Structure formats: structure tokens, C-alpha cells
């Protein structure tokens, strides 16, 4: 907690105090050191077992980074603009199709493919946004659900016509000759891109455009009376977030190397909703926390349950034979606990900790 902001210019500055610069440097250093910790399984010379690292390796971190970017995009749409949309999987699939057409079939350079995926996503997103001109809340949700199934059908038809039953395969991409074919290189690429996405989102929210979105969420009629073009802004919100989502979708399929239509299920969408709700709607740090928790926690739970010996009373047998189910039960209970006690999610918890530490011993 540093000095108060007295004008917009101060509010918009990213590095507004010395302590912020310090923590940013710490973060960059930690991110730099992370791959070597995960690959060599030791930190500053001390060896770590798999359980102590909670079963997390570089592939999981890469998945988490992808999830962070997609979660930020979804949060912009749902949390900040208040538009309930189930189209997330559909936008991922748009990225996958565009990459397949441009990257695999026509072999265009990778950066161009990503950009093109984003643009295709923006166009589809604007289309998805059209019902939002007329519908609100639950009804908008269901109309995007309908569009989800339609988009999936298009993807399935494309896949069966041009590729085999097992899906579309993508070769390792290369950026100006630097081939991204192992997890370390993917990590570098994804960390940089995640940083860019977060920066873009934060700047957007600090400007007029972003504040307009929040105004629309809170009270669209009042926002309209202030001169904000509500309908146009909604479509723009859809287009912007689906640009990011489709670009991330393209990255995702290149990272996996293969995709097929059954990956873009409703569960996929619900997972991302879970991420932003647990992380905290309307909060960028919430998206990051939620994505990290949701992608890394099941791994951690599985690893922890794997380290319990099968002879332990009751629990041992459960964990041995039904590892996945036990992890799900724990995850479900955790979600309910968070929702019951801290509906603002992880970002709310984090803010509470920060405040408590700053105000100590005056924190309540």
C-alpha cells in the first residue's frame, strides 16, 4: 500500500511505486529460475522429491500458463463486462481450425498463424455477441450454448472431411528459425505471451474502454445514458476476448501436437468458468490464481494420494483404486468451502491477506 493516486495518469501507471518495481524483479527472477528447479528437481542445491514439488513439472506449468491466458480473456468477458458466455471451447476450436488450415495445410509461418487465428476468433466472437444485443443473463448464456454446439459441429465436419478419425496433427512450430519443440522453449514462449496478455488486459482496464465495460456490467441503462454505446461495446468485448482466446487455442493445439473435436466439450467450458469464479470474477490476479490452482491442484492431489501407502485404513484402498475420483471429491469440497466462506474467490483471499499483513497489528 503506497501513496494514493490523485489523478488518472498515476492510476494508469504500471510501476507506480518502488516496492512494485522490486516485486516485479523478484517475480521475473523466480520465473527465470523455475524451469531449472522443475527440471533438475532441486532448489539452490537442495534436492526435492516429487511429492515436495507436488508432482508439478514443466509440462503442467506450461498448461497452467495457457490456462492463465484463456482465463484472463474469459474474465474480461464474464467478470468485467458481465456477459455470460459459454463459447470458450468454440473459440479454442476456431483457433485450432485456423491453425489447421493455415499452418498445416498451407504451411504459413507460425506468428502469422497465431495472428490469423486471433482475427478469425474476433470475427466469430462478434457473431457470438449478436444475441447479447437482445438477451441478458441466463438467456444469453443459453444462446451461446447453442452457438457452441453449432461451432463444434462445424469443427467435426471439417475434421472428418480433411483428417482422419484420430484428429488433426500439428508439427512443432518455429519462430524465425527458433524451433519450439521442447518444454523449456515452450515455457519461454508462453511466459512471455502470458505477460503480454496480462499487460494488455491491465492496460485495457485502466483506460476508457475498460471502464466502459465495467460500467455496462454494473448498470447498462445508466451507462447508456452517459453516452457509452452499449451494444457496440458488448460486441467489441466479445471480439476482443475471442481474439485472445482463439490465439491461445492455436498455441494450445500446437503445444499438444494433436487435437480432435471431443476435446472441445462442455466440460472444457465449465472448467474455465470454475477457474474464473474460484479465482475471483472481475480480477486479473484472480484469473492467474484460479488458473494455477485448477491446473496444478489435481496433479498435486494425485501425487499426494500416490504417496500414501495402500495399507492405510480405508483411505489407502480408495486412493489406490480410485485416485481420480478421490481427487475430484476433494476438489469439489474445496470449491464449496471457498464459495461458502469467501465468494470473492482466491483474489479476495489474497487481498485479505495483503491487507491483514499491511495493517497488522490493527487488522481485524
Amino acid at each position, binding site marked *: *500500500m*503506497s501513496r494514493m493516486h490523485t489523478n488518472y495518469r498515476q492510476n494508469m501507471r504500471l510501476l507506480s511505486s*518502488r*516496492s512494485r518495481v*522490486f516485486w516485479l524483479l523478484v517475480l521475473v527472477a523466480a520465473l527465470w529460475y523455475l524451469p531449472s528447479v522443475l*527440471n533438475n*528437481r532441486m*532448489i539452490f542445491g*537442495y*534436492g*526435492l*522429491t*516429487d*511429492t*515436495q514439488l507436488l*508432482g508439478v*513439472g514443466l*509440462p*503442467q506449468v506450461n*498448461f497452467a500458463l495457457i490456462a492463465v491466458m484463456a482465463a484472463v480473456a474469459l474474465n474480461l468477458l464474464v467478470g468485467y463486462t458481465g456477459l455470460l458466455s459459454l463459447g470458450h471451447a468454440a473459440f479454442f476450436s476456431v483457433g485450432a481450425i485456423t491453425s489447421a488450415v493455415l499452418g498445416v495445410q498451407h504451411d504459413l509461418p507460425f506468428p502469422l498463424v497465431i495472428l490469423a487465428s486471433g482475427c478469425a476468433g474476433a470475427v466469430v466472437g462478434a457473431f457470438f455477441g449478436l444475441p447479447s444485443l437482445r438477451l441478458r443473463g441466463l438467456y444469453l448464456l443459453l444462446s451461446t450454448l447453442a452457438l457452441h454446439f453449432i461451432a463444434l459441429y462445424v469443427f467435426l465436419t471439417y475434421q*472428418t472431411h480433411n483428417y*482422419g*478419425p*484420430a*484428429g488433426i*496433427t500439428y508439427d512443432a512450430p518455429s519462430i524465425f528459425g527458433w524451433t519450439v519443440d521442447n*518444454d523449456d522453449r515452450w515455457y519461454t514462449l508462453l511466459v512471455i505471451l502470458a505477460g503480454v496478455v496480462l499487460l494488455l488486459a491491465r492496460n485495457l482496464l485502466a483506460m476508457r474502454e475498460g471502464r466502459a465495460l465495467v460500467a455496462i456490467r454494473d448498470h447498462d441503462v445508466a451507462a447508456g445514458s452517459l453516452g457509452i454505446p452499449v451494444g457496440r461495446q458488448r460486441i467489441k468485448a466479445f471480439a476482443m476476448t475471442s481474439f485472445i482466446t482463439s490465439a491461445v487455442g492455436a498455441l494450445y493445439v500446437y503445444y*499438444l*501436437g*494433436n*487435437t*480432435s473435436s*471431443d*476435446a472441445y466439450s462442455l466440460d472444457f467450458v465449465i472448467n474455465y468458468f470454475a477457474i474464473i469464479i474460484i479465482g475471483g470474477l472481475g480480477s486479473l490476479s484472480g484469473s492467474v490464481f484460479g488458473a494455477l490452482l485448477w491446473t496444478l491442484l489435481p*496433479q498435486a492431489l*494425485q501425487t499426494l494420494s*500416490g*504417496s500414501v*501407502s495402500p495399507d492405510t485404513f480405508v483411505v489407502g484402498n480408495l486412493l489406490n*483404486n*480410485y*485416485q*481420480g*475420483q478421490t*481427487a*475430484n471429491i476433494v476438489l469439489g469440497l474445496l470449491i464449496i468451502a471457498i464459495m461458502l466462506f469467501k465468494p470473492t474467490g482466491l483474489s479476495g483471499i489474497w487481498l485479505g491477506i495483503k491487507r491483514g*499483513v*499491511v495493517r*497488522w497489528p490493527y487488522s481485524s
Partner: protein
Amino acid sequence: MQSASRIGIALSIASLALGAAACGSSDSSSNASGSSGGGGGKSSPKEGVTSNTINYGLIYDQTGPQTASQTPFAHGFMTQIDKANDAGGINGRKIKLVLGDEKGQVPDGIAAYKKMVSQTPVVGITGINSSSIQEAALPLIEKDNMPFVGPQSTVKEGLVPVHKSVFYIVPPYADQVDVLLGYEQKALNKPKPKVGIFRLTASSGIEVGDLVKAAVKKEGGSVVADQQMDVTATSADAQAQKLVSAHPDFIVVHSAPTQSAALLKSMQKLGSKIPLISTFAGGGPLPYAAVPASVGSTFQYTAPTSPSDIKTDGQAQMEADASKYGYSKDVTDSAYAIGYISGLTVVNALENAGKDLTRESLISGLEKIDNLDTGGISEPVSYSATDHVGLSATRPYKYNYSTKKFEAIGEFSDYTSYITHAYGG
């Protein structure tokens, strides 16, 4: 800068705690990485082999849509591993299974696989039955030369061309289709048959559909109906109607037992008597239990393993092992039998690999397997440098409602002549 100092204090406390946790905690069952030891035989911790433990990976669908068939498979595999460990292990080492949950989704499958390469290293992997996950994982498996003993080759790329570290147990779809078409043509005496197809919308459904169409065309027959059912759909009524109205001589079924049961129920409603012949995936006790004898008698399926009603030494042994290790619920499921045979194969290969156990030596251990006897549950398992499919024999089965037992139709050797080995091996 009071705020910074407060945050700094909090952070130093946190990092001290983390450091204490990292250094202080002891892990009773730590994994192979980082530990090494002396003792008989060379160990290669980076590949999951220590002086007293062999880490072997098992990736299957624990909580996703395929769990109904893959959990019994996993249990069959675990039975053999438990049995081997109780007998003293392999060359003085106990086998520890590292489980991975693929949840039927490619990212989870890939993440589980990658983890087993170097993070929690294993000397070999079994499972990954889902076709899209196998398709995504095969390039990685081949690049890493990781020994992979999958039960079913669900994608053609697994067999064509043969890769040195990729092995399968169950005959590929090409062989299954050869046998079931050949059998049905002969049984109904229709050399140029009119065939209907009922298949899942999943990738294996598309592959089987293509194989059937090609094979039927070669025989001079024709495919008169091709219906698909989604794995989440609940009723096969519309598909059944279309199939029946096309008047095929017989219908080839490829689906999970649930969908075969749904099809049979719809056929019951329509009063149809058209013979149905299913691949391995669609058979089992469930479809027969779902309908009465009048309908169930039209349904037969091909499988490389014998159902539990056919008593052989191997069958009795399998049942004894299942009840000993707590898997009696699963033993009637054919997936359990496949898991059991896969486990037997892997244990045998590990023994063949010798004391200096590495991924390379496991591959040669697998290729050394020749006529591994399963006690009659199936034909013997054999591999060679060019043949990476363990069982190449499959035969049809039916259910006798009056004796309440499954019966085999002929011997495995009656049907080997039909197999054209379209996928090699």
C-alpha cells in the same frame, strides 16, 4: 517505507517455513528420482529403476467417459503386478505402478505421459487406450523410445510402420473386421453380403467403418446402411429404424457395451431378427443382460479372449488371483482379462530383460516373448522384431440363454485364414 518492511517480514517468515518444509520432511515412499543404490544389477534411476524398485507406468481413464471399460483393464493389470510382487518381484526388485489419469482428454493424457518420462520416470508404460490420446502421444513415445505396451492399437499409426518401442496386445481393428466379416459371410452363406454398420461417432468408429466398407467392397458386397451413435446419446431408436429399413444381411457393430445394449433394445422394439456381429469393444455380458433371449440370440461378438464361462486352467487361475487381490467384481469383464494378459506380458518381458534393466533392455525383453501361454484364456502372446501385436487370433462368441453361459463358436485357428494382416504383423 513501512509497508515494504512489513511485507518483507511476512515474506521472510513464509520462505523460512517453506525452507523448513523442503529440507525437513522425509518422504516414506519417495520415488526413484534422486535415489540410487548398490546391490545386484545396474540401476538406472533416470528410467525408473532403482536397486529395489521398478517403476512402471499405467495411464488409463480413471474418472472420464471411458472409465467403465478401462478401470477393469487396469485392475487386471494390477492383479498380475501384485502377484509378481508377492512372488518376490523381478530379479530382486518390486514393481511399483505409477498411475496416470487421462480422463479421456488429450491434455491430461499428454501431461500424464510427459510426467512419466523424466519427472517420475518409469521404465515402460501401458494403457492410453483412447484413440485421440494415443494419436497425440505416439510421436512423443517414438521420440523418447519409451517402451509402450498398449492393449489396443486404436490408431493405425501405431502399427504402420512398426516402431521399435511400441507394442500391442489386442489384434488391430483390421484383423477383427476380417474375422467378423469372414465368419458372418460363411455362417449366413452370403458371399456378396449387404452389410449395415452401427458405430460410435468416435475416432475408432470412423476407422472401423472405413475398414468394413473397404473389405465389403473387395468381396463384391455393398454397405446398405451406416449409422452412428454418439457416446452420450441415450437411445438408438432412430438408428435402428434406418438400419432395419435398409434390409441388410447382417449388421456390424462397433461401440461400447452400453450402445450395443441400446441398439439391442431398439431392435427388440422393432421386432427385428437381423444378425448382429460386434467387434471386441461392443461385446460382453451387458448387451445380453439388457434384452431377453428372443433378441439376444441375434447378437454375437468377436474377441481375442474367452469369457469366464469357458473354463480353462488359465481362467481358473485368473479367478483365483482376482479374488485374492480383491477384484472379483471385475473378473467377468473381458477388459479385465485383457489387463490380466497385458500384465502377464509385461512381467514376462521385465524378467526377460535381465538384471540390467533399462528401457532398451525392456524392449528386447518384449521382443523375446514367444508363445507366452495364457492358460487358454486366449491364444499365446508372441512378439518379434517385425510383429508387435501380441495376440493375432480372435473368434466369435455367443450367449446361450438357456444354460446362461457364453459359448465360443469354433476355435481360434478356424479363423486365422480370414486375417489379411492389413496392418502388418
